[in-house]
């Protein structure tokens, strides 16, 4: 007993011992530094080397920033936002923005969770833009957007709008956006406006449009292809496999060029000559759908057979079993992969600059070559690309952040 180890048969005479808190994990700032950064000689060397590299990069960056010339970006803010969309008709994209703000506000209030996260990000962005003296009506539009977002949230949180109407609103917002941007018809509030050819759309507006349309269309197509690839019917299965493998074997830029030259070959006679924008959207959607299908298939394969059997045994039809049991679980498992795919799609929209569409990167190239900046020593490419890169990063990181929130939200109460 002296060693404290009980003999072979022993009964603990005491009442259950009370639970205790685990030992503290933090032992103060200095303690943490010592434990994690300077625990051994090698670790200390590594820490110091890393610090030196960080300092070196930071110092160079600071020196460049101090002398950076941001005028080209400020002067071309309208170009970066909407491309060469006619200035006197900017009310049309403004209405689209306000519509989206209202929908996000209502959704954040009604559904909460991830929509609230996205809504907060959007609100911060609108607030920032409303405070910067952008000129024209821009500030007022941003402020109105913020007001609609907050007002929508207030109404949504009080259950003023049914989920079903909200979904309908989102679905309708797609075609409505195109009607508003194209103009050329009698629009409520805005009155009659001359038609704006889609080749005039550009900047962040075009980037967003390409990304959102690509995501919204490729998602259902990708899910259908993933299901098709697992179908028992050979025609459907081989079509899906063929499609996926063919598209995945071709670079997006090739598809974009093919869309520009070959799309009319595949369209029925009366469809005429689709615009560059529609061709680019088609190529992006087809491309993304193939990758998405493989991601979703991975999720489908991770669903245990017992889930199908339980659904079958309950008498659920194949479609109901997919809708309520299989797809919800499969999609949640592959959220990181799907969001990764969407981030990739968002950045890949920059490739359309190579087929003559004026999205962000194309605007950047145009700005760099403007004659006003010819006299600037070293050119303005650095500033312009850093700015465009920051915009891409901001939205990509936003998607990544939202996806992590969604994942933890949908953990099904797992510990």
């Amino acid at each position, binding site marked *: 007993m002296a060693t404290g180890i009980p003999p072979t048969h022993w009964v603990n005479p005491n009442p259950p011992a009370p639970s205790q808190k685990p030992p503290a994990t933090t032992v103060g700032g200095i303690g943490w530094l010592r434990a994690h950064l300077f625990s051994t000689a090698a670790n200390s060397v590594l820490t110091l080397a890393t610090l030196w590299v960080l300092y070196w990069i930071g110092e160079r960056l600071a020196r460049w920033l101090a002398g950076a010339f941001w005028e080209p970006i400020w002067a071309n803010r309208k170009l970066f936002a909407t491309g060469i969309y006619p200035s006197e008709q900017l009310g049309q994209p403004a209405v689209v923005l306000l519509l989206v703000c209202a929908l996000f506000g209502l959704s954040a209030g009604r559904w909460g969770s991830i929509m609230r996260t996205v809504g907060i990000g959007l609100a911060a962005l609108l607030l920032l833009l409303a405070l910067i003296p952008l000129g024209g009506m821009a500030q007022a539009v941003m402020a109105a957007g913020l007001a609609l977002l907050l007002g929508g949230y207030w109404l949504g949180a009080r259950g003023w709008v049914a989920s079903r109407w909200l979904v309908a609103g989102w679905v309708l917002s797609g075609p409505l956006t195109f009607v508003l941007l194209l103009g050329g018809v009698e629009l409520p509030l805005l009155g009659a406006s001359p038609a704006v050819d889609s080749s005039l759309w550009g900047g962040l507006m075009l980037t967003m449009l390409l990304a959102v349309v690509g995501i919204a269309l490729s998602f259902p197509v990708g899910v259908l292809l993933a299901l098709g690839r697992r179908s028992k019917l050979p025609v459907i299965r081989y079509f899906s496999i063929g499609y996926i493998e063919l598209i995945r074997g071709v670079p997006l830029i090739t598809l974009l060029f093919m869309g520009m030259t070959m799309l009319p070959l595949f369209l029925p006679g009366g469809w005429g000559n689709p615009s560059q924008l529609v061709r680019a959207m088609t190529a992006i959607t087809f491309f993304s759908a193939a990758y998405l299908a493989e991601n979703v298939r991975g999720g489908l394969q991770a669903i245990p057979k017992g889930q199908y059997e339980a659904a079958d045994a309950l*008498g659920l*039809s194949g479609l109901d079993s997919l809708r309520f049991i299989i797809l919800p679980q499969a999609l949640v498992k592959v959220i990181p992969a799907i969001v990764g795919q969407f981030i990739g799609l968002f950045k890949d929209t920059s490739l359309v600059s190579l087929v003559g569409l004026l999205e962000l990167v194309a605007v950047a190239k145009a700005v760099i070559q403007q004659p006003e900046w010819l006299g600037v020593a070293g050119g303005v490419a650095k500033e312009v690309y850093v700015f465009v890169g920051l915009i891409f990063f901001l939205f990509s990181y936003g998607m990544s952040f939202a996806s992590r929130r969604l994942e933890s939200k949908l953990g099904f109460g797992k510990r």
Partner: protein
Amino acid sequence: MAGHAENTDIIVATQVNKWYGDFHALKNVSLAVKRREVVVIIGPSGSGKSTFIRTINRLEEHQSGEIVVDGIPLTHDVRNIEAIRMETGMVFQQFNLFPHLTVLQNITLAPMHVRKIKKAEAEARAMQLLERVGIPEQAPKFPGQLSGGQQQRVAIARALAMQPKIMLFDEPTSALDPEMIREVLEVMEELAESGMTMVVVTHEMGFARGVADRIVFMDSGEIVEIGTPEHFFTDPQHDRTKLFLQQILK
């Protein structure tokens, strides 16, 4: 359907055969189960007892022979299969609850979408069933937050929510920790007393002895012996049965 009187057969399997590749998993299995009867199927692992019970609601397809459930012949016709599945509830060894739905949603899903029952009514009935299996307080939780025994009781409630005429149990306690087996068996005993027709594949000899009307012993894909519990445990006829009983009752 005609003949709802007591003592008529509700499941009739005749000369059922099934192969996995070259492996002959079910060999001329014939069995009739009466209404309100509790039939327990026992046998060594790999004897085909799970395969047989799973052919009854077409989770496994049999290649020859005939299965008729409550007058509905089990054919390739999807309508027949769905009709039979509505009459039979099934409880699995691994519970197979839907992890992304709450306990309540697990139970109400099929009644709402297959039987087209209103949500409020389906939820009220689900709560009654949760009372019956003794865990109404777990309704808002997710399956992952429940113990194995609680999950299996939810699975039983989920199957009962479709108001089946027959309950199939495929080794319902085999995946449970020993201290949870009792709570599941008690629910099954109560169900048997209420007059439910039950076909149970299990290794729980106490349950077989106490609750079964008849015991079916299977080995190597065929039925070796069928008898009442007294007969079966005290006076087994076949050598294979005797050997099996010796091994498990040691």
